[in-house]
């Protein structure tokens, strides 16, 4: 059987890639995709740990995380669409009306 730590490290790597994406991308949709990547990484950790403990709990967490991700997506994309309507652009670098 594959050791749990393998899965944990994979999830760490995926999570970090997601974090990195949030930091370097400019398109809010892609930034948001990277956030989804982070959630997926956490899910892998949950499932792997659940298997490690032979507990169903790990998979329960994933179900809730999925629901949360779905909710976030609908609202997040709604915000993005709404912004595109007034600005005709969604580059986050143009969004600094408010600062300092």
């Amino acid at each position, binding site marked *: *059987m*594959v*050791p749990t*730590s*393998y*899965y*944990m*490290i994979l*999830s*760490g*790597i*995926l*999570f*970090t*890639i*997601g*974090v*990195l*994406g949030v*930091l*370097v*991308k*400019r*398109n809010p*949709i*892609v930034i*948001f*995709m*990277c956030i*989804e*990547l982070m959630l*997926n990484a956490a*899910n*892998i950790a949950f*499932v792997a740990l*659940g*298997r*490690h*403990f*032979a507990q*169903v709990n790990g*998979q*329960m967490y*994933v*179900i*809730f995380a*999925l*629901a949360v*991700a*779905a*909710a976030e*997506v*609908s*609202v997040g*994309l*709604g915000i*993005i*669409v*709404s912004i*595109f309507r007034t600005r005709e652009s969604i580059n986050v670098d143009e969004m600094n009306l408010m600062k300092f």
Partner: protein
Amino acid sequence: MGNALCRAARGTCSAYIPGYLNAMPSAPILVFFILAAVAVISALMVVTNVNPVRSALSLVVTFLSVALLYITLSAHFIAAVQIIVYAGAIMVLFLFVIMLLNLGAPAEAEPKNKAQSRAALALSAVFLTALALAPLVTFSTDAKSEAAIKNLGTVSTIGASLYNPALPWLFPFEATSILLLVAVVGAIVLAKRRI
């Protein structure tokens, strides 16, 4: 890239044959590495691609390989949900919005902010190192037997746990409905031209 995809495809096939996995002791590790490589590479492509459509497609690949990883973890139901919800619904929504806003072809290359990118890379590296050095490798061995985990991921196990009033999952499940309601109302408020 092509090679990786090819291997991913082979991994996909083999993942549907649990017996094959169990028969060859070294195979699960191999499968894991293949899937992990696909996941990581496609995740990296999400970040490095300039075109959001390609990013989205790469993300689909990541989601699929994650779903296969769930299968290797005996989480069959979760794997199915991952494909249906993530790779299916959510990613379609993403693509839909990208197409709707006509963001397929970016006008300019990104990113230009080098200081930000360098800092991001450095901090991410530290973050990963700090996590991976000790916390993530806490479990070097697997304690549980195959038998104990065999039925963990079936629909019946999950359903029985989720709706068991003696377990603490029923309440958050109900609370999730409020969350989804909020999301529905919110999406309508935001996206409708006139309320």
